[in-house]
């Protein structure tokens, strides 16, 4: 057992446990707060995998922006503060579909990649990733900026509501 293995097991347990709480809790606000824990644990996983920039972007975008947006949306839709027992649908078909997809995915992955070892790669720092993006990934990068602009305009148009 190396240090990375122990870290991986601990972080994986935290991520999976808090993800389970997101799905099972009856408090909407608590689901959002458990989501923060899950996303933070996954950012730490990225750090262990030497994806440095992606980990910090995860903290900035997901924990910083997306969760705040989600919590604002819970406030704006007047979500109940206390537990709301009617939050769930019938569980049986969902559990069946989930188990099927999860088991299938895990079997496929394990079959495809076996249990191999990987070398410790060079860390994905901002400099290395930036060089890569602006040499081989320029076109997708520019297309993404158009996508963001379109999303911005679309959100304004959708949320403006009735035209007076």
């Amino acid at each position: 057992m190396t240090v990375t293995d122990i870290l991986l097991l601990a972080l994986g347990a935290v991520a999976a446990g808090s993800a389970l709480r997101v799905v099972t809790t009856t408090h909407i606000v608590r689901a959002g707060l458990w989501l923060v824990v899950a996303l933070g644990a996954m950012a730490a996983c990225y750090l262990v995998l030497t994806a440095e920039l992606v980990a910090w972007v995860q903290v900035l975008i997901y924990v910083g922006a997306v969760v705040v947006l989600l919590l604002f949306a819970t406030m704006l839709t007047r979500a109940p503060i206390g537990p709301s027992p009617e939050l769930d649908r019938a569980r049986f078909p969902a559990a069946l579909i989930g188990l099927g997809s999860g088991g299938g995915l895990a079997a496929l992955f394990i079959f495809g990649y076996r249990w191999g070892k990987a070398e410790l790669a060079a860390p994905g720092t901002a400099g290395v990733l930036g060089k890569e993006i602006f040499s081989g990934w320029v076109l997708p990068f520019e297309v993404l900026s158009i996508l963001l602009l379109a999303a911005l305009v679309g959100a304004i148009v959708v949320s403006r509501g009735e035209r007076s």
Partner: protein
Amino acid sequence: MDPSYYIVLSAALFTIGAVGVLIRRNAIVVFMCIELMLNAANLALITFSRMNGSLDGQIMAFFVMVVAAAEVVIGLAIIMSIFRTRRSASVDDANLLKY
């Protein structure tokens, strides 16, 4: 170190997110579960990038995050406009396209 553990973790997180999307009623919690699924995909991408010794997977994960941010903005705008017309954030109440 063994990357297969990460792949299994990502499959487990994806499953949890998929079950959440199917069983939750509140549209915002459904959104949180979609974020979980996107993150599971990112974890798999980064693990593959590590296994192949190339940075392409990390860049793709980066792009997925940007698309996810755009998706959250649009989705919440749609949820808000549905809430404004129906006074409810439950996905079961928005059923006009059914049948």
